């Protein structure tokens, strides 16, 4: 039986562990801290197609959307994952924004995504508390949401029940190699032998790659989310301004904020989300929260009196060309990477795990995996030493 070590017990590591265990591998998950404690717990649980332009990431998102219901069905307590196919509505507030949004939606429709433009009355009906004078609104019924930590721990639990071993509080420190092939990892809890190693360490996967002796240009990008006090139902879809699409696709280091407003089952409203590169600096900046609040109020002016009771920030695994990294390491045989999903890892984890499994077992993946390969320039810049 193939022994696989998965590095990281976030959503991507958990999904990979589950998929590889189901495929018959003997999986050990090595986690520096605790399950779902970092990036996974600090996101909104997005499972989106609406923010993705036609191309490989959209194909991975669609594969994931097909897989998620099957994953949930197989869980003993699918309710705990809080899957909600609530749909997303993207809103443009300016004429230029409206034109760009319509063009973007048309492209997505051509790629097979359902993207229906709402007129003012239909938008007001769908979101009665939102701003009335919008320039354009597009409804994406396929967008969904989960409670991300529950999704990750449920997948991890499924892997463990099927025989995977979970080692928490165990940090990888280096690779054991033999004849150019990785044969195990050294950790703070001793050496773990492996036929294959999967780097699913999210924003830290660049650091983990370096410890294993290879280069991988995945960097942290900071994101903040505001959480309001629990409210009566006020926001019914995932509502975001069209600038969100621009923020995801941009490589600017400075602050980008666009409003993503949605409610949770507990009645709180989540307001995301910023994107800025600040290394692993986890200090909350009130000025950044202020910008986020102002953007949200442009979409939902009626929320002005609602208290924010919490803010949280996390790090997302950022790659310069905005595509996930899924595949074998070009230099170190036996090492695989599954990372670089930025803010989309929750949704894309299901498809990522399936693609990785197929690649590792020598099968043809359901979608073309070549765009995610590790030896592309954005991930392996020339001349940058490990």
């Amino acid at each position: 039986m193939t022994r696989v070590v998965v590095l990281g017990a976030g959503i991507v590591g958990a999904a990979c562990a589950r998929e590889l265990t189901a495929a018959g591998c003997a999986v050990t998950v090595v986690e520096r801290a605790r399950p779902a404690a970092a990036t996974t717990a600090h996101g909104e649980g997005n499972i989106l197609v609406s923010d993705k332009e036609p191309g490989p990431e959209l194909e991975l998102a669609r594969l994931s959307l097909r897989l998620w219901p099957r994953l949930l069905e197989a869980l003993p307590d699918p309710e705990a994952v809080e899957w909600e196919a609530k749909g997303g509505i993207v809103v443009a507030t300016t004429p230029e924004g409206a034109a760009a949004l319509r063009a973007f939606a048309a492209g997505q429709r051509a790629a097979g995504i359902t993207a229906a433009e709402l007129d003012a009355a239909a938008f007001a009906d769908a979101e009665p508390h939102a701003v009335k004078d919008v320039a354009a609104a597009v409804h994406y019924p396929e967008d969904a949401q989960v409670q991300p930590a529950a999704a990750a721990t449920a997948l991890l639990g499924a892997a463990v029940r099927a025989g995977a071993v979970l080692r928490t509080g165990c940090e990888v420190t280096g690779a054991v190699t033999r004849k150019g092939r990785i044969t195990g990892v050294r950790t703070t809890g001793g050496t773990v032998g492996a036929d294959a190693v999967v780097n699913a360490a999210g924003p830290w996967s660049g650091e983990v790659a370096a410890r294993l002796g290879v280069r991988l240009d995945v960097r942290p990008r900071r994101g903040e989310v505001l959480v309001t006090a629990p409210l009566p139902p006020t926001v019914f879809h995932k509502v975001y301004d069209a600038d969100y699409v621009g923020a995801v696709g941009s490589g600017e280091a400075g602050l980008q904020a666009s409003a993503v407003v949605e409610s949770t089952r507990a009645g709180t409203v989540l307001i995301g989300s910023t994107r800025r590169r600040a290394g692993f600096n986890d200090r909350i900046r009130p000025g950044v929260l202020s910008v986020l609040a102002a953007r949200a109020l442009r979409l939902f002016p009626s929320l002005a009196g609602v208290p924010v009771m919490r803010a949280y920030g996390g790090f997302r695994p950022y790659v310069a060309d905005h595509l996930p990294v899924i595949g074998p390491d070009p230099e170190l045989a036996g090492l695989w990477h599954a990372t670089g999903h930025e803010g989309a890892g929750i949704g894309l984890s299901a498809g990522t795990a399936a693609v990785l499994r197929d690649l590792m077992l020598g099968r043809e993946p359901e979608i073309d995996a070549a765009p995610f390969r590790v030896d592309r320039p954005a991930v392996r810049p020339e001349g940058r030493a490990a």
Partner: protein
Amino acid sequence: MRLVDDDPAGRRDVPLRITVDGEPVAGITGQTIAGVLLASGHRAWRTGPSGAPRGVFCGIGVCFDCLVTVNGVRDVRACARRAHEGDTVTTQSRAQGDLR
């Protein structure tokens, strides 16, 4: 639940009136909204997620059990807010199907 009678601290009471869910309630100037509610016999005015009644627990603004809507502004800690003449207080609920 009542005010100290014949107060040795030598208090002087100036009456005020507020409404709670439309009903007039009498208090004295200087009381918090929680104080007005408690002194007028209200023990509980908010409900938790299960619909269970809640009133004042910590009394010093920490537990958020006593939240009310004051003059249309929601989530005001009744134990920390002074009552003003004519305040319109409405109660809040987190119970399913009774979302105020």
